[in-house]
């Protein structure tokens, strides 16, 4: 049993047609940083709230450090929570917000003072302890919320889309900061986000969810390079998905007949047969000029984005995305007829 263990968790709201979360089983190790990733409505926040105790699970069990806490009320779970809107107490100043959890634990005044200072220093807000909440910027509020959750030395830190209300630049800084604090404290963390870049950047492991169920659990690399299915492939990073027919499989490599492209090869872990989907990331696609009678398709869009050039190539009814390193090859104009190709190890057969 892992440090935080969730077994067969189900949440079904009365009157709902299908459960918000179904058969959720996951073990999280001590000190691990796990992200729950998925589009809105996938059940990730509901799962987090069941861990926190704010939502009661319909069935299933939750264990923390070997002790069951499925029915333990929120205020006895001792988890640190950071909310999407921070939920700072507007009538208390920064220091008193942070001290709140310690007051509830009846920590002595002197110790509370020391720990509040430490927590505020950790999030680099020591100089603002007397400020009122509405005098703080969004980023500062975020740090106060983090300090308030950390000061109680929670067994698990739960972050519910903590960065979504910040502007893009601040978001990158904050996520680095959260990750470095988490590493420093070694605190077990569950992080809910709908932003795949965020999840890829900070997580030890990512749980991809869709419509209440887990689609895949894995390290960022596993999730990106070896998506378990079309949903994950599409959701994580950009993807070209081709319909294909497997003609022959040998030694982990499949020979395929790809619609519009003809005979190609791809990595095949599972030894599948018959119809299949092939995933190729745009930056792994290769494109070259070809005579009209020899071409797969026509360049339809050209977008220059500094480091690279992105082409949209029309193949039959589909558009294939290709990302080329700028300057590495001849720049293609719109209307150019082209051939598409890839290295066998850059293509993956999905079932």
């Amino acid at each position, binding site marked *: 049993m892992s440090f935080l263990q969730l077994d067969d968790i189900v949440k079904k709201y009365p009157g709902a047609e299908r459960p918000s979360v179904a058969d959720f089983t996951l073990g999280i190790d001590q000190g691990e940083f796990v992200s729950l990733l998925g589009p809105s409505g996938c059940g990730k926040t509901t799962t987090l709230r069941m861990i*926190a105790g*704010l939502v009661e699970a319909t069935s299933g069990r939750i264990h923390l450090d070997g002790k069951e806490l499925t029915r333990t009320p929120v*205020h006895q779970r001792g988890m640190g929570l950071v909310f999407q809107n921070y*939920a700072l107490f507007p*009538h208390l100043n920064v220091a008193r917000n942070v001290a*709140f959890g310690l007051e509830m634990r009846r920590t002595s005044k002197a110790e509370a003072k020391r720990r509040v200072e430490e927590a505020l220093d950790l999030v680099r807000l020591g100089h603002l302890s007397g400020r009122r909440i509405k005098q703080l910027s969004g980023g500062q509020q975020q740090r106060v919320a983090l300090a*308030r959750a950390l000061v109680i030395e929670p067994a698990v830190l739960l972050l519910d889309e903590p960065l979504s209300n910040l502007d893009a630049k601040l978001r990158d800084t904050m996520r680095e900061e959260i990750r470095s604090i988490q590493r420093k404290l070694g605190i077990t963390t569950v992080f809910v986000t709908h932003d795949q870049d965020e999840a890829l950047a900070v997580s030890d492991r990512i749980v991809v969810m869709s419509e209440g169920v887990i689609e895949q659990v894995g390290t960022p690399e596993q999730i990106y390079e070896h998506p378990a299915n079309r949903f994950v492939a599409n959701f994580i990073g950009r993807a070209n998905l081709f319909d294909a027919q497997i003609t022959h499989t040998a030694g982990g490599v499949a020979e395929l007949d790809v619609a519009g492209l003809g005979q190609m090869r791809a990595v095949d872990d599972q030894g599948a047969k018959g119809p299949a989907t092939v995933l190729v990331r745009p930056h792994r696609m290769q494109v070259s000029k070809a005579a009209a009678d020899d071409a797969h398709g026509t360049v339809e869009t050209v977008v220059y984005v500094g480091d690279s050039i992105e082409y949209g190539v029309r193949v039959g009814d589909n558009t294939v995305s290709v990302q080329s390193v700028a300057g590495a090859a001849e720049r293609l104009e719109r209307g150019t007829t082209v051939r598409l190709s890839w290295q066998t190890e850059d293509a993956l057969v999905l079932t």
Partner: protein
Amino acid sequence: MSAKTRSARLTVLGLTVPGLLGLAVSFVLPLAWLLRMSFNRGDSTGYIEETFTLDSYAQFVGDSYYWDMAWETTLLGLGVTVLTIVVSYPIALFLVRTESRFKGILVALAVAPLLTSSVVRTYGWLVLLGNQGVVNQALMGAGLVDQPLALINNRIGVYIALVEIMMPYMILCLLAGFGRFNQELEHAAQSLGANRWRTFWRIVWPLSMPGVLTGALLVFVLTISSFVTPRLVGGGKVFYLATEIYDQATATLNWPFAAAIAFILLALFAVVIVIYQRALRRIEAQ
């Protein structure tokens, strides 16, 4: 002064003048007239002698009966205010927190009594609380009492009826005052180890203070200036400043004395408003 600011000033003036005029005609002038009246000499036949005397004020100040009346009035204001908060708060809190799709209808229902005049509602209480009213009939039917309780024609009835009449005002103020509140704050407090009770006292209650204070001010002022309900339900046994003003003005016809009491009541309002503003400033300074 530039032309632009001058025209802006004129616009402001133009926009405020109708309101100021309305206020002058409907409020300041009658008040000035009332102040003048309070310095006339009245006698018990209702005859008014135009003069300039402080007799009416002296009559009030020099008689402990009126001090008692002022004290009873203050007590009534405080009592009704506290009771109204106690009964309205749970309703307001429920209305703020409910996720029912009938929320709008429920809020409308809670304040709907405002659509009925307080006179009608007071008569309603006379019927409900009377000896043959449903309350007494139910109590006797259940065997809890063998004689009907005296719930009207006394102070108890005045309190009950006034609290009910004031509830919609209080609920409205509380709903408006809950603006800064959102349920995530309760969740945050709970996640930090606060049980329901401490969450309420440390988070919900302080955050609702502006609404509570505004509601308290409104209810206090409306209560100590209400005369219809105390007169109808009081059975002629309870006297407050407002009923006394009404009696002096329309029964005894001693207008100078009525005017003097009116100004004393206004002074009481002023004290309460100063206290309210102090309290509000303290809360906002937090």
